[in-house]
């Protein structure tokens, strides 16, 4: 995703050439609003079509049980918040998410810096990082349930497993990319390994770390949902699974919307942080 941002120029060029060859210089109001409008229009069309299905197609009673029009989902969503029934399960899910992501950061960051700075440690850890990163975390779920039981800690373990590796790998990449010259300068002034990490390596790796954090959030949300689906007794995911088995499709979709909005909001927040933290970068790049 971050890659696409730097590629705007060719796209703009393509836009002008492909869309229409005439109105290149004057970029009007429509031009600026077009992406948003088109994006919103897609959502609108889908929602209207979805809502209209029952009026167009005659559904059998069996199929009807799996169908919830958007209006019904919206009402359900509103009721969940208005009556306050959503807060307890949401709190449980949020706790699993927060604790898991926190632990993932506490382990992933230092470990990433360590294996980034030491070839030997990297060689020692590499097989495990590769294996755990490639393996779907879900495969450990039955085992984790056996060890930690139903509840917060199984969820935390699954979230940590999912979220730690993007953080670790990105931190590692960032550390490896640190400017050797700067490290040597700091070292010449008598800095220890700790100071090098604090003064050069970690600030330098910050954009990578933030990208890792963004990936980690996505994986952590997935971890919460999945672990609640299969092994938990409370939480938003549990609510959704129970609703699904009772054919309350509207609650399933309402839950999905809540998860989606939360994960988009958090990713957006991290993106803002990313922009904030990288503001100083261009000035420094002058020395390059």
């Amino acid at each position, binding site marked *: 995703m971050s890659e*696409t941002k730097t590629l705007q120029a*060719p796209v703009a060029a393509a836009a002008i050439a492909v869309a229409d060859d005439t109105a290149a210089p004057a970029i009007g109001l429509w031009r600026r609003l077009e992406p948003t409008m088109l994006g919103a229009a897609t959502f609108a069309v889908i929602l209207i079509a979805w809502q209209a299905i029952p009026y167009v197609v005659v559904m059998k009673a069996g199929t009807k049980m799996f169908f919830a029009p958007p209006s019904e989902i919206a009402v359900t969503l509103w009721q969940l918040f208005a009556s306050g029934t959503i807060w307890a399960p949401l709190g449980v899910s949020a706790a699993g998410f927060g604790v898991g992501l926190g632990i993932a950061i506490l382990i992933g960051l230092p470990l990433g810096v360590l294996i980034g700075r030491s070839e030997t440690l990297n060689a020692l850890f590499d*097989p495990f990082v590769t*294996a755990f990163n490639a*393996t779907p975390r*879900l495969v450990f779920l039955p085992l984790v349930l*056996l060890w930690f039981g139903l509840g917060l800690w199984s969820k935390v373990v699954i979230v940590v497993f999912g979220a730690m590796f993007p953080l670790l790998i990105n931190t590692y990449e960032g550390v490896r990319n640190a400017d050797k010259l700067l490290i040597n300068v700091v070292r010449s002034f008598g800095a220890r390994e700790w100071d090098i990490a604090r003064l050069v390596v970690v600030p330098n790796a910050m954009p990578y770390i933030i990208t890792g954090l963004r990936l980690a959030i996505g994986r952590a949300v997935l971890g919460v949902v999945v672990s609640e689906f299969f092994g938990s007794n409370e939480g938003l995911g549990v609510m959704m699974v129970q609703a699904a088995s009772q054919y309350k499709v509207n609650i399933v979709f309402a839950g999905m919307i809540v998860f989606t909005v939360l994960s988009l909001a958090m990713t957006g927040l991290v993106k803002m942080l990313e922009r904030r933290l990288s503001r100083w970068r261009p000035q420094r790049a002058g020395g390059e």
Partner: protein
Amino acid sequence: MTDDTVPRPSFVWQNRKLLLGSLSVALFFVAWQAVFLFVPLNTLFMTEPTMMFRALGQLIASGELFYDLRVSAVPFGYGFGAAILVGVPLGIIMGWRVRVGYALDPLMIALYASPLVAVAPLVVIFLGVGVAGKAIIIFLLSVFPFVFNAYAGVRAVDYLLINVVRSLGGREKDLYLKVIFPSVMPYVVAGARIGVGRAMIGVLVGEFFAASEGIGYAIAKFGDIFALDSMFACILVVTVIAVALTEGVRWAERAAFPWRVGR
């Protein structure tokens, strides 16, 4: 750079990464085995490597393992194949037809951020636990990396090449076949790396929910009957397959598009 003048490094030094890696894996298994010389082993909660490998041998000998793997591989193939066939063209069109991109990008982002695993119960209720249900879950989980990467790939197409083809009288079709498709390929393969992982999650989700065979079902079943040696054996197999698939894609990436290494 400076290493050119240094005398040839020894064999050990040249392969130190591989050696250290194997060493640490070997140490891991030895330590795991050794712990239970001091700590009593409760086979209901833990197993040791020797027992795990013995169980693995039995699963292979009885043919159970390969049967379950075959059962899981079929929906994986269908779902992942469909993800490529749908995701790549969709991403290319989104990238090339700018308005289509505007229209679909927010929807795709929202769908990607939503926990699509959540529709798994609905899919299972609707389509049952057979190949179709699993394949759809796998498709839903693995299609987005292809869409986004093909999309990004088109946007990175060298505009000069397009102008050249246009100047020489190329049509839209030539553009797609001669410029866009080749430059999108590396992105698609990179997407496949992410997609493979997500497709495997799809397999497991489908089989944990409701299944009577398949590798995910086997893991859940062995967990339920506290057969931890067999369970660990299956987990090990899944890990090996996962690494083989992701590293395989990475290898293909390096072999096919050597100029992109390091991106």
